């Protein structure tokens, strides 16, 4: 379970790192036909108080990875924060920007999967051994 969360967080981290790189390099992300990543990336929702959301993603997924060494609840809390934030971004894509970015959707799915696994992990962890170490 922990390994699965770590793998998903690594995927999330890779997606966020890629989008961060794209953001600062000023280039277009690789985008599939139905997506309009550039529109999403250039919208006012791509930043929160001046911080690109991709950077927030990098920090968030890194925090989830790091939390695997802490109490199981910490990972769950991080994952819930990630889901709530992804939920907000997905809402913005669908109802404000009117465009979808496949990378953002992928990240939202990854964070949701991490949240489910982190919940199962927290509920199912042996009561005397709740941390990785």
């Amino acid at each position, binding site marked *: 379970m922990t390994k699965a969360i770590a793998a998903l967080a690594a995927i999330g981290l890779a997606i966020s790192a890629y989008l961060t790189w794209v953001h600062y390099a000023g280039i*277009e992300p690789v985008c599939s036909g139905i997506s309009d990543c*550039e*529109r999403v990336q*250039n919208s006012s929702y791509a930043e929160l108080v001046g911080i690109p959301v991709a950077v927030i993603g990098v920090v968030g997924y890194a925090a989830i990875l790091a939390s695997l060494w802490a*109490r199981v*609840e910490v990972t769950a*809390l991080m994952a819930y924060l990630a889901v*709530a934030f992804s939920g907000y971004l997905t809402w913005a894509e669908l109802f*404000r920007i009117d465009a979808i970015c496949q990378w953002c959707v992928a990240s939202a799915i990854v964070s949701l999967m991490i949240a489910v696994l982190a919940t199962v992990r927290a509920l199912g962890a042996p*009561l005397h051994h709740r941390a990785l170490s």
Partner: protein
Amino acid sequence: MSPVTRSTMTLRLGLMAALALVVVVIAVVVAGSGGGGSHKSASPAATESALKGVPQSGIALGSPKAPVTMVEFADLQCPFCAQYHRDVFPTLLKRYIRTGKLRVELHLLRFIGSDSDRLARVAAAASEQNRMWQFVSLAYQRQGTENSGYATQQFIDKLAADAGLKQTDAGTAANQQVRQSEQTAKTLGIDSTPSFLIGPTGGPFQRLEPSELTPGAFIPAIQKELGG
């Protein structure tokens, strides 16, 4: 570690989920990005930082040495002009204008109504201070309903202050520029906004008629002018 029962853990996780939701909602509301409708993120700081370091001269943005110039005719009240500014312009700014490949000129027209006229006059004053693009960016972000009278003196004063304008009265030259823009539009037969021309800097220009207001509809024409 103290023993924790499953029900306690369930309760704890539930509380954390609720906490996460509250934290994100507060963060988003405080950041001012959500739920603001058309007025979202009309931040002077974000506008300033987007344009920082890009040369401005009168109605032109970008290096005077840029090989390609794109001329835009717009009305600050026109929703499609605002859409272009929101959906296309940031990409052009980042990829072509900031990199010295493209220079853009904005000719403001006033055909929609009196709000257009009031805004265009202050934009002319802004162009004299080489801050027209800051003013225009904020004006589009805060655009109201056409001819609703939203461009009140108070609205304009706030806009001008946020765009960093020292004064809002255009001099003779700037007013002349506004009339010149309208005359040019008339000569070229431009009767709708936004309308675009593109060509090597200094001309000659030809009409650019994008099929839609997305970066992808402009980039091929710019690349073609750049010779690749």
